[in-house]
């Protein structure tokens, strides 16, 4: 077993996270894409930890899981709030701050 496939996998995951943020308008998907990006970093951290043979990477990953949880809480809250405001999950709807609307 070599680390390269892991690297490729992490890269793909991170990229897919970015793609998800950009291409989707569904706020849940956007939120999960961000989680995905962070998770792929976790994979890398765990991998490095394994390669280095120390536990630092794993600990960082563990802390990251907490960070992910924290972000998730806030994300879910804002999604709920927005859904309550506009009855939609479409991120494009929330564009009242565009230059056109403020000029």
């Amino acid at each position: 077993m070599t680390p390269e496939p892991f690297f490729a996998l992490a890269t793909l995951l991170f990229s897919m996270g970015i793609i998800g943020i950009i291409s989707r308008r569904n706020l849940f998907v956007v939120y999960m894409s961000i989680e995905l990006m962070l998770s792929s970093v976790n994979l890398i951290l765990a991998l490095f930890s394994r390669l280095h043979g120390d536990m630092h990477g794993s600990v960082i990953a563990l802390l990251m899981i907490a960070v992910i949880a924290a972000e998730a809480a806030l994300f879910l809250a804002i999604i709920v709030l927005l859904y309550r405001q506009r009855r939609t999950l479409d991120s494009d709807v929330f564009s009242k701050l565009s230059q056109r609307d403020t000029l």
Partner: protein
Amino acid sequence: MLENSIFAILALFLLFGSLGMISFKQTIFSGLSFLLAMMALAGLFALLENSFLFLAQIMVSVGAVVVISLLVMLSVNVNEQNLPKEPAKFRWMLLSAILVTPFALLMYRSLTHLNREFAETTAGYGSLKMMGATLFSDWVLPFEIVSVLLLAAMVGAIIIARKEPVNDA
């Protein structure tokens, strides 16, 4: 060899899970795919002999975060017509995929630049005990402030999500 095939299966799950997550129209399907991906990730942690991380991933990421997300998804109960119409979804994906390529290339090339092979792990690697030892010897400060982070996030989330009578302009 066994490891390789396990890796292949987990990787496939992970990839399809995340691919599904970003491409399903229905939120709930995306959520479920994401759940799958997260579980596969947990599997990969296990494959990397990181048992504690595996546990944490299952318990926190999967068990708490994703499941709560699913619950929220269900609770907002989005029906078909409230979902965003995304006719150009795949075109956007293509565009962003093209744009993301240089980044991915850079990332991959940098990662593989690290010429390291998997070595045999020392005894107790990935165990709770070693994890705890590292955490509480070297990483006390981050661990401490993560608690503040969680607290702050919680306060924030409560403020944001709390229902209040809408009376101010």
